[in-house]
């Protein structure tokens, strides 16, 4: 036996093999790391045009019945009565919200996107292999009237990400006008769960749930469908996207894109330590004064006591990285160890112009040089034992190798995730 564990595959596995993907283990699945185009071309494609990702390894739960709302209010870090809009109003059907499931000690069980299907049913998307773990966690707090179901093995998921995503998707939709008319960022249409009353179908009749979200920081969609439908949707999208330069992308590009977009990877940037003092404090139901929570929830009490850790995003000055390993650490300029590296990767679309970080998506008027050819910048997240301000620098060290990086609250500028669909059709 050469493999100690039996790896799972997604319904698109045979297509990945056909497309000569370089496969690797991730979250218990054998997933594409990159295709023959390479991780750099895939990263750039998503920023300039579009990329297609198999994300069927993500776990999909549904909560249904009386008490589903109360269960989420008790366990999810967002206040579902106050989470949408400037004067935060309640979550409503066809809207999604990002947050955390915390353990009672304030550490992160997993992050999740909760989507309201209707007032009594919710879709909860969590990370690879986390479906049973989160379901079990929720079950212990659930009223008997709440039905928690894990749909991971029957549902596939494909992410179409990049500024050309709407143009590529449009010809596949039966009624693109009505679909796109009601799709702000973090909203969805369709329903593929038991009890669906308002299904969405593609022009060929395939049912799906289409959400305007993703994990790249760029404009795009996530398509949830039956696992058995993933193959023809994948092929149809690649065909429709060919004129726009759409390419299949692997997890390496997904990782570098999300890092540049300041999005955490669960169990790496947030995880089995007390949550707090991170760039992601928006996931907590903070009161209007920024202190105190607007609702009680599992883990809240532990968080009120404060966390000894401070998590920051950073960007380097060239592509050089110090990988996050047990042997690497964060140091002050005087060589004092102050913490650990959580993520360190290279965003290939950015570079320094003077001290500023500029992207291939930055306009010339905003500072992109005419013939900008970025070499990429190392970037990621560190967890340290003290407060640092944006703009201050620390050292990442592994043995003899050491790089200086700047604490930042943004990494890749000029991202497209929140652009209006009308601008990108």
């Amino acid at each position, binding site marked *: 036996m050469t493999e100690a564990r039996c790896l799972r595959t997604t319904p698109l596995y045979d297509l990945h093999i056909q497309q000569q993907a370089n496969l690797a283990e991730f979250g218990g699945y054998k997933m594409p790391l*990159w295709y023959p185009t390479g991780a750099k071309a895939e990263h750039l494609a998503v920023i300039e045009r579009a990329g297609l990702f198999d994300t069927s390894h993500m776990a999909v739960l549904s909560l249904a019945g009386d008490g589903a709302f109360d269960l989420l209010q008790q366990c999810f870090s967002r206040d579902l009565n106050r989470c949408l809009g400037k004067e935060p109003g309640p979550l409503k059907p066809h809207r999604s919200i990002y947050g955390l499931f915390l353990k009672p000690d304030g550490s992160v069980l997993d992050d999740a996107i909760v989507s309201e299907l209707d007032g009594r049913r919710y879709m909860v998307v969590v990370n690879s292999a986390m479906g049973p773990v989160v379901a079990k966690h929720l079950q212990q707090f659930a009223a008997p009237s709440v039905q928690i179901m894990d749909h991971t093995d029957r549902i596939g998921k494909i992410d179409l990400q990049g500024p050309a995503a709407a143009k590529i998707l449009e010809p596949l939709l039966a009624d693109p006008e009505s679909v796109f008319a009601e799709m702000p960022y973090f909203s969805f249409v369709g329903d593929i769960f038991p009890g669906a009353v308002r299904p969405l179908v593609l022009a060929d009749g395939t049912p799906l749930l289409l959400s305007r979200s993703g994990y790249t920081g760029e404009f795009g969609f996530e398509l949830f469908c039956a696992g058995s439908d993933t193959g023809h949707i994948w092929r149809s999208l690649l065909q429709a996207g060919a004129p726009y330069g759409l390419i299949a992308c692997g997890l390496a*590009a997904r990782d570098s894109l999300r890092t540049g977009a300041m999005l955490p990877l669960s169990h790496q940037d947030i995880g089995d330590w007390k949550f707090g003092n991170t760039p992601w404090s928006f996931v907590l139901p903070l009161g209007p004064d920024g202190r105190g929570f607007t609702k009680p929830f599992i883990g809240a009490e532990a968080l009120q006591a404060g966390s000894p850790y401070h998590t920051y995003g950073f960007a380097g000055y060239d592509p050089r*990285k*110090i990988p996050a390993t047990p042997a690497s650490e964060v140091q002050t300029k005087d060589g004092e160890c102050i913490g650990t590296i959580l993520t360190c*990767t*290279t965003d290939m679309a950015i570079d320094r112009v003077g001290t500023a970080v500029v992207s291939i998506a930055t306009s010339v008027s905003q500072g992109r040089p005419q013939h900008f050819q970025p070499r990429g910048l190392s970037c990621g997240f560190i967890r340290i034992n003290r407060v640092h301000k944006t703009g201050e620098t620390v050292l990442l060290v592994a043995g003899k*190798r050491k790089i200086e990086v700047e604490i930042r609250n943004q990494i890749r500028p000029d991202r497209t995730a929140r652009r209006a669909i009308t601008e990108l059709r």
Partner: protein
Amino acid sequence: MKEIDELHLPGDIYYSTEHEWAAKDADTVKIGISDYAQDQLGDIVFVELPEVGATFEQGEEFGTLESVKAVSEIYLPMAGEIVAVNGELEDAPELINEDPYGNWIVEIRPSDMDQYDELLSREDYLEMLKG
């Protein structure tokens, strides 16, 4: 990922167990990485080169290659002095992916040319890759 039989492994150069190649040119030897190594690494985004004049022992780390995902040390398959580095790679590290044999990394003057003959032939290297 390339299958073993898809790898391009020229027969007129030698290989190391750490996946470097060495090609003799009169009294100097050019060093690069094999097609297998570049394929495993994926897109190379940065090459850290040694100083010309630096000397290294056989098997000593002389630089690093960084892909989007990883940082990999590169080891000198023969002891010697660096007489030239391929500066083109500093601006275009992807050249190694495009043509790992046309794009050497360093040129050395070996302190013991006998070490060249101790390296792996194409056949030996292929055997090693097949495990």
